């Protein structure tokens, strides 16, 4: 097949471009510069022959719907075909009138090729040529790989094989390597195995844990007991040590009391009373002496005191003057400062007068303007300035808005008017949720298919098979009761048959037993029976009759008959002897024979019954089959058929559901179809062409896009209108603001003269002058107030000082002229000092008189106490038999000593009782016996150390017990063996998965290798010969051809052969030569195709060739063009020029 012309109607950048290929040319060279569209033209050939793919890169100028390619084709048998191709999903092949051609029209023209194969085998680019050359180098001459590399398809297979082998090797190699996924997974699985083993809690482990807990408890109990014993011993020893000194003291007290036994008994209260009376007597004597001494001292002090009575009388007046001295002193300090402040304020006022052009501060204060006048002037000044600013701003604003309006009108003068798309939106909304319906339809269809398949599987699983779905649907299933009835019949029949069979087996056993008995009885010798005897007798009678018949005959005959008789008689005798001699055996034998006969008869009867049961079974079976005959089904057992019926009924029920589901889907499909038509009509109504072959949701999306665009345009137009209204409104507002400002300014100018007069300025004063005058008037207020305040203060102070000096002089003249001084303040100070001394002396004299009176009263109370105490002391002397107070004191000391010893003894016994842990004194003394008290502290210390060690041991044992209990509890909770088992299962699955993945990849790699090898075996000889010729031509006879050598490993290896016979390996060829070899191999492969010859299309193939080999290759391609059409695309002008030098072939140069 040849391409005679290619029409790029609307394709990529092309529009109505026609490439014509001369029919008589053997090589077509399409020439075009870069960016001229060579790649587009190349792709267009494939799209024309095989159709556009789902996506295309050539719709950037023309829409998908508009894309068109055309072409004229010529078959090798001479037929011509003119076709066109559009982009779409079906009916893409068109004739010249745009009518669809059948899809199979091109099939006989394409030699059974698919698009991919055509691109791969019949297309060659500069890049793929270079890649091919590199692949040859990579194959290293190995023939199989080299031949594979020379075919695009086989090359891909070879690369795939390498990839798969690489992937397989990464997963697993028989030689262990830790990094391989398989071995990693194997290790993980081993770890999981170990973890599982460790996680299992066995009965033995639990038993050991219990035992460990028991041992730990026993050890703890033992240590606790030892600790208890030690504690008790330590307590006893410590008690002994504790009471040791108390017992010794009790012994000593007993001895001392013995020495005081001569004293009379005296109560502790009497003893205390007497001791107190003795002490009181001594105390009264001491107190009386002290009172006498005080009387003498006070009399002496009173005599030494001096008091100024006149001053004391005038002390109120003196105090009043002293209170005024603070204020007078402050006046003296402040007066100079006040006078200075007054003078400074006056100077400031004079300065302000000068600034306003007035003679002095007096004139200034006379013309001082009131606050309202100043406020009025200030207000007018501010308003005049604001009005001027407003006028300037308004003028500028108006100019800007006017400019904006002019620009807007210039920009949007030619904008079209649009209509509101709201109605369009309502129409679009009326289409409904088309995408949702389409999605639902697809989903429901898929679900329907799944359920249909499941039902088919369920129906197919029905055994016996009811046939097709439709048949199953129509089946009237038998009543379950009927099946039950048959089940019972079958069961009864089978039970009867089983019983009969069992009976038969029993009878057979009995027969076998009887036969066995007979055999056993016969083993001891032949055991004739009565039957035998009867038969022998009958035989004898027969022989006697025969003898009787020949009595008249010859002797020999008689002798023979007699001999028969004798033998018969002997037989009878023998039987008779046996019957007589072994009666028991005979009886048994006879019995066995009878039993055998009876059993056999019974067997016949049972066999007949069994046959009847079997006949009945056949009858039931027949009825059973007939019951199912209407369903045309051969039934299984009733139990099976009961299940069958349930399942069939379930399938029927689901079939009914399926029908409803299908009806729903049909309705949905109809809705979707209607929605597609409605959407298409919508699109057409707005001037868009709608392809009704497209899915409804696609059309719906297209309509939605259109609606979005229309709404966006409408929104933009509305925004423009609003903007213009705003600008015009702004312009009007600017005009109004300017007029208002000018009006305000005129009003202010009218009020100006009156305001200036108020602040002592002329009518013509400017705004600046007015502002300066206002500033001066503002400065006057502060110095004015200061001047007035300070003048008042100075006058008041001077009056206060004069009045004080008058009052002081008058008082001093009246009561103490001697105390007058130079200043009034000093005079007051002297009078105050004198007054203070007189007041202190007077106070001391009064206190001394009061003390003397109190001492007189005390002396009287002491005398009364002394008399009462003397009476008590007298009683004590009598009781203790003492002559005087000194003897009484000694007796009292001894009695008190005895009393203290008795108290100590009592206290000791109480202490002993409290510290003896409940033991009495006798027991304590007993406990002490046998103990060396001197060694006892050492013993106690040793026991304490031992006890401390025991405590440590107990703590450790307790910890061990807790640990063992914890371990047991952990065991009881489990070690999550379930999770470990799960992990092991996961690891196993992972390992198995890797093994399976490896197997598949390794097997595929091996299979690819075998296919490549087969290819080599098949192609080797003829292909190498043809490729050799082509290679010689392409290399401009630098090489004579190709040969096959065998390497050290006996593997065939491809080499190039020079004219002188030298063989060059692939690695020894230059890059360009390898490209030529690859081209030769590729063309040789194409020559072997027997199907319709397809065009070979090359794209810039000759870039790596030198000039001579380019020319040689052009000749080679031109020569090959007689077999198949060859089209070469190039952007190299020298290729065209070289082609034009070829005269022995017709080369067609086509400009793009």
């Amino acid at each position, binding site marked *: 097949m040849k391409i005679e012309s290619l029409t790029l109607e609307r394709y990529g950048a092309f529009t109505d471009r026609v490439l014509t290929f001369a029919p008589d040319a053997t090589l077509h060279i399409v020439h075009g510069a870069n960016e001229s569209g060579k790649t587009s033209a190349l792709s267009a050939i494939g799209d024309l022959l095989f159709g556009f793919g789902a996506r295309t890169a050539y719709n950037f100028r023309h829409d998908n719907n508009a894309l068109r390619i055309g072409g004229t084709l010529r078959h090798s048998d001479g037929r011509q075909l003119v076709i066109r191709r559009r982009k779409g999903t079906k009916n893409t092949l068109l004739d010249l009138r745009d009518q669809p051609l059948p899809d199979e029209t091109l099939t006989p023209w394409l030699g*059974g090729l698919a698009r*991919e194969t055509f691109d791969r*085998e019949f297309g060659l680019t500069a890049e793929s040529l270079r890649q091919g050359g590199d692949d040859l180098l990579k194959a290293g001459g190995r023939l199989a790989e080299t031949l594979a590399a020379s075919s695009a*398809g*086989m090359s*891909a*297979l070879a690369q*795939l094989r390498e990839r798969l082998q690489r992937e397989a090797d990464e997963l*697993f190699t*028989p030689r262990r390597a830790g990094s391989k996924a*398989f071995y990693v997974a*194997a290790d993980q*699985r081993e770890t999981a195995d170990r973890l599982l083993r460790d996680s*299992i*809690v*066995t*009965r033995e*482990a*639990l038993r050991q844990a219990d035992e460990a807990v028991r041992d730990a408890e026993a050890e703890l109990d033992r240590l606790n007991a030892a600790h208890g014993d030690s504690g008790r011993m330590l307590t006893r020893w410590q008690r002994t040590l504790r009471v040791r000194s108390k017992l010794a003291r009790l012994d000593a007290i007993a001895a001392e009391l013995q020495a005081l036994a001569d004293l009379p008994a005296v109560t502790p209260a009497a003893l205390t009373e007497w001791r107190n009376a003795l002490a009181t007597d001594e105390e009264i004597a001491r107190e009386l002496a002290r009172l006498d001494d005080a009387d003498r001292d006070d009399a002496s002090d009173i005599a030494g005191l001096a008091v100024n009575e006149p001053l004391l009388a005038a002390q109120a007046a003196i105090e009043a003057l002293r209170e005024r001295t603070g204020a007078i002193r402050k006046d003296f300090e402040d007066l100079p400062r006040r006078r200075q402040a007054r003078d400074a304020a006056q100077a400031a006022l004079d300065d302000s007068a000068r600034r306003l052009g007035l003679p002095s501060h007096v004139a200034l204060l006379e013309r001082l303007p009131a606050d309202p006048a100043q406020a009025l002037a200030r207000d007018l000044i501010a308003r005049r300035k604001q009005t001027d600013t407003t006028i300037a701003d308004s003028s500028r604003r108006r100019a800007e808005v006017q400019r904006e309006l002019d620009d807007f009108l210039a920009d949007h003068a030619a904008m079209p008017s649009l209509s509101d798309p709201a109605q369009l939106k309502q129409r679009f909304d009326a289409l409904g949720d088309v995408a949702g319906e389409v999605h639902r339809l697809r*989903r429901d269809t*898929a679900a329907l*298919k*799944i359920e249909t*398949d499941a039902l088919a599987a369920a129906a197919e699983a029905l055994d016996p098979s009811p046939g097709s779905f439709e048949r199953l649907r129509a089946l009237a299933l038998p009543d379950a009761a009927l099946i039950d009835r048959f089940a019972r019949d079958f*069961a009864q029949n089978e*039970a009867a048959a089983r019983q009969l069979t069992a009976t038969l087996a029993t009878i057979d056993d009995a027969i076998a037993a009887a036969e066995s008995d007979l055999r056993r009885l016969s083993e001891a010798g032949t055991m004739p029976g009565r039957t035998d005897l009867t038969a022998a007798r009958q035989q004898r009678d027969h022989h006697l009759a025969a003898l009787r018949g020949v009595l008249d005959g010859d002797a020999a005959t008689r002798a023979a008959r007699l001999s028969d008789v004798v033998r018969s008689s002997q037989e009878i005798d023998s039987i008779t002897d046996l019957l007589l001699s072994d009666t028991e055996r005979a009886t048994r034998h006879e019995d066995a024979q009878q039993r055998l006969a009876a059993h056999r008869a019974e067997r016949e009867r049972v066999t007949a019954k069994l046959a009847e049961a079997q006949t009945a079974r056949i009858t039931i079976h027949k009825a059973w089959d007939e019951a199912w005959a209407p369903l045309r089904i051969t039934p299984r057992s009733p139990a099976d058929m009961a*299940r069958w019926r349930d399942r069939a009924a379930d399938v029927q029920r689901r079939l009914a559901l399926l029908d409803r589901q299908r009806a729903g889907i049909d309705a949905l499909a109809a809705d979707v179809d209607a929605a597609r038509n409605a959407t298409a009509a919508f699109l057409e109504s707005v001037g868009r062409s709608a392809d009704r072959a497209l899915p409804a949701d696609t059309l719906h999306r297209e309509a939605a896009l259109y609606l979005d665009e229309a709404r966006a345009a409408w929104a933009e137009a509305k925004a423009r209108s609003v903007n213009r209204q705003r600008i015009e409104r702004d312009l009007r507002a600017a005009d109004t603001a300017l007029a208002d400002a000018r009006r305000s300014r005129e009003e202010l100018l009218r009020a100006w003269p009156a305001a200036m007069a108020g602040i002592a300025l002329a009518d013509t004063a400017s705004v600046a002058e007015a502002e300066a005058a206002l500033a001066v008037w503002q400065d006057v207020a502060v110095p004015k107030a200061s001047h007035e305040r300070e003048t008042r203060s100075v006058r008041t102070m001077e009056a206060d000082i004069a009045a004080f000096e008058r009052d002081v002089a008058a008082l001093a003249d009246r009561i103490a002229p001697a105390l007058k001084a130079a200043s009034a303040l000093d005079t007051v100070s002297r009078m105050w000092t004198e007054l203070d001394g007189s007041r202190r002396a007077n106070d001391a004299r009064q206190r001394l008189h009061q003390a003397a009176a109190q001492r007189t009263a005390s002396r009287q109370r002491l005398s009364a106490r002394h008399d009462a105490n003397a009476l008590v002391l007298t009683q004590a002397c009598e009781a203790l038999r003492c002559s005087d107070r000194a003897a009484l004191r000694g007796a009292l000391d001894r009695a008190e000593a005895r009393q203290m010893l008795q108290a100590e003894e009592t206290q000791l016994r109480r202490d002993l009782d409290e510290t003896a842990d409940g033991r009495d004194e006798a027991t304590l003394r007993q406990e002490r016996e046998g103990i060396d008290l001197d060694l006892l502290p050492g013993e106690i210390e040793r026991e304490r150390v031992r006890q401390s060690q025991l405590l440590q041991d107990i703590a450790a044992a307790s910890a061990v017990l807790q640990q063992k209990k914890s371990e047991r509890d952990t*065991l*009881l909770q*489990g*070690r999550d*063996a*379930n*999770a470990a*088992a*799960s992990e092991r*299962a*996961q690891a*196993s*699955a*992972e390992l*198995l*998965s890797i*093994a*399976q993945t*490896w*197997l*598949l*990849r*390794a*097997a*595929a790699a*091996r*299979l*690819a290798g*075998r*296919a490549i090898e087969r*290819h080599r075996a098949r192609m080797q000889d003829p292909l190498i010969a043809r490729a050799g010729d082509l290679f010689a031509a392409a290399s401009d006879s630098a090489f004579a051809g190709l040969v096959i050598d065998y390497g050290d490993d006996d593997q065939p290896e491809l080499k190039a052969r020079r004219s002188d016979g030298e063989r060059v390996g692939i690695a020894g060829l230059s890059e360009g030569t390898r490209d030529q070899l690859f081209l030769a191999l590729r063309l040789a492969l194409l020559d*072997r195709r*027997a199907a319709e010859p397809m065009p070979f299309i090359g794209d810039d193939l000759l870039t790596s060739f030198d000039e001579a080999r380019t020319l040689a290759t052009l000749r080679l391609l031109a020569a090959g063009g007689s077999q198949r059409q060859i089209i070469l695309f190039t952007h190299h002008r020298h290729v065209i020029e070289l082609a034009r030098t070829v005269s022995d072939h017709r080369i067609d140069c086509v400009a793009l």
Partner: protein
Amino acid sequence: MRFSFIHAADLHIDSPLAGLGVKDKAVAERFARAGRRAVEALVAETIASQAAFLIIAGDVFDGDWKDVTTGLFFVRAISALHRAGIPVYIVKGNHDAESVMSRDLPYPDTVHVFPSNKAASLHLDSHRVTLHGRSFPHRLTGDFVQTYPARRDGWLNIGVLHTALDGTRGHEGYAPCSIDDLKTFGYDYWALGHIHAAEIVSREPWIVFPGNLQGRSVRETGAKGAMRVTVEDGRIVEVTPLPLDGARWDHLRLDVSATADEASVLSMIDAALAQAHAGAANRPLAVRVTLVGTTPLHNRLVARRDDLQDELRANGFRIAEDCWVEQLKIRTAAPLRAPQALSAPDSLDIDALLREAADDPDFAVTIERLIKDIEDKLPKDLRDELRASDVVAALGDDARALLAGALS
């Protein structure tokens, strides 16, 4: 009087689920804990429904499972029934018989385990129910059913039996017997165990397999649980399945003959996956997807299996975090090529070359060698599994399809 009881069997507590290939530890743990959750659900359901008693017809434990804490877990779980005053009747199955760890478990008083030396009858006076049963004494037991006692007239008679029945349901033939054998006893209800697929074998009398409590592999798909049996005036009036499983398996076999491209295949699987997840009622779901049918996409599907599987797993996660696609299996077939295409003298027909190479008996030898290579390195227990896998069975065809698909 109306009451109900629960009939369960084949708990196989702590028997691990088949390897799922889940990488997410939290999700893997949810699957791993499913068995125990199912046991807890059984107990909770029994209490919540105020059942009169619970029957467990064998195989509470797995035979070769040695972790004693599994037994303690069961005792803890079942003690809740004791506290609720609900008695439990158990026969030991073949797995229990060989289970070392389950011997001498400290069951509460209300848990009755039938003896193994002979069949026994236990009576529940409050409901006028008699239960007949016998535990497996050891793993292999022949004549067994024949030893069961006669019915007690006037009472509801329940036979508790661990049996493979007539052996047609695919499990090992323990305590073989026929349906008719069971019918001869005149019991009202046969509470069977051992077969892991739930089935109401008969309605007169009721002969029921509740199935196992938790599916453990893709061979045990769909809802798993127990049966609630309702009794009214001494007659069984209703038997209702109770789904109690803690995780669920599903196997979607999808015919892709009619699908045009890979995207349609994925859409079909997604729809089926969503449907399966909806049916699992928010349980963790492990789904195996097997594509079947004759399709031109066959080679491409084989070549892209790993990528498609990853995509499906991602889609599963979009449905729910524990909706896991366990495996994608491609069991489709390529359409036969036209005869003329096969015989065309086209030396570059790679498909034909691959086909010829694959059909070469030497290739089978190569495959066997590869299998042997990796088999030698596998742990012993996985070798048989590898041999039995359908990957090995279809290795030659899949290798060819992979190459053709990758080249297309």
